[in-house]
């Protein structure tokens, strides 16, 4: 069971870590100062949460791997983050829509995880729920602004939607053996989360005059650590320093 929980922890912590790495690329490049601060703060929350989860994962695994070793010394085929988290930032509409998709998913997921039979996971999740509530309020308000702003902002949101939508299905792909975790009350059933998520996103996009398409091909694979071409580049940048100087201390 520990091995399964370990893998599940990697799946959720990697998603936060990779998304944090992505959005922190906006630091110093935000559209204006307040947004620069907002994204930096959100990235910080995600990094912090991933640290707690990876630290716990390392303890469960029992091989003495620290949070840093898990973050910096695994390659693509050992990363389980959702595909949507590694997609490029694009323009601000794309960054905010990606964030809205993930925030809505995470708020539902972490609310359920805060009731997990695993007490450490439940405690980390309960803390995260408070933070994700803020993230979602922020990203949702931006998506609405893009959708109802000018023709230009709407077009950008529409383009972002076409780019990102096929990667949303991957968030609901369980890892091998996840049903056992669900049965034991450790983690929620992703199918239930999917139903709620679709309703929330449908309502959001209707406000923006975007209709959800039916029967779109959905990419998948991250539950088996199969990724798009982007993850390798992200890891190469994120891991280069610790790999070049493994003994370096902050």
């Amino acid at each position, binding site marked *: 069971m520990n091995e399964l929980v370990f893998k599940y922890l990697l799946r959720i912590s990697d998603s936060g870590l990779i998304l944090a790495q992505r959005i922190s690329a906006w630091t110093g490049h935000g559209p204006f100062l*307040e*947004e620069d601060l907002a994204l*930096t*703060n959100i990235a*910080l*929350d995600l990094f912090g949460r991933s640290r707690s989860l990876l630290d716990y994962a390392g303890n469960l695994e029992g091989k003495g791997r620290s949070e840093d070793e898990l973050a910096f010394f695994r390659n693509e085929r050992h990363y389980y983050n959702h595909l949507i988290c590694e997609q490029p930032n694009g323009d601000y509409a794309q960054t905010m829509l990606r964030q809205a998709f993930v925030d809505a998913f995470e708020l539902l997921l972490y609310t359920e995880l805060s009731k997990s039979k695993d007490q450490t996971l439940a405690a980390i999740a309960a803390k995260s729920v408070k933070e994700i509530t803020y993230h979602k309020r922020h990203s949702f308000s931006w998506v609405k602004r893009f959708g109802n702003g000018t023709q230009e902002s709407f077009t950008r949101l529409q383009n972002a939607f076409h780019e990102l939508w096929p990667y949303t299905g991957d968030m609901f792909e369980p890892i091998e053996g996840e049903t056992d975790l669900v049965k034991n009350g450790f983690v929620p059933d992703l199918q239930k989360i999917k139903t709620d998520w679709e309703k929330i996103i449908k309502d959001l996009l209707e406000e923006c005059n975007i209709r959800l398409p039916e029967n779109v091909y959905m990419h998948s694979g991250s539950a088996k650590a199969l990724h798009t071409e982007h993850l390798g580049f992200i890891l190469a940048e994120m891991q280069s320093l610790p790999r070049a100087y493994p003994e370096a201390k902050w």
Partner: protein
Amino acid sequence: MNSSVLNKDQILSWLHEIPDPEIPVISIVELGVIRDLTFNDNTLEVTITPTYSGCPAMKQMEEDVIKKLNEKGFSKININTVYEPAWTTDWISAEARLKLQNYGIAPPEGSRDKTALMGEPKSVTCPRCKSKNSEMVSQFGSTACKALYKCKDCLEVFDYFKCI
């Protein structure tokens, strides 16, 4: 210090001398991050909880606690981080809220339960001119725990300690 009898109040008063690294007018005790003190096998165990998951000041607070207790004669100190119950602004005392206001940071308004239902208040009292005529500029301010507001009367921007 070899006494096995733990004088919690005394130790807390020492920890009370440690300022928050980012908001130096309140102490880490007033902030509510110190959750418990226990003594096991000559080791003083200090239980702390982070304000926000990614708060970069936590490491500094841990180091400050160890340094302060070393000065007071404790050689074996263990910092134990807990997440449950999750930190809340409800733990910030009335006295500390006043200190925040005098420092120019609007303290959290109301309690967490109300915020969870109603969202953040639309207007926050300006810590400078005390006007309630303010608006939110950004949900995220200079640190993870704060939002940015602007007073529409004195026109100053100010930090608001988010209610969580």
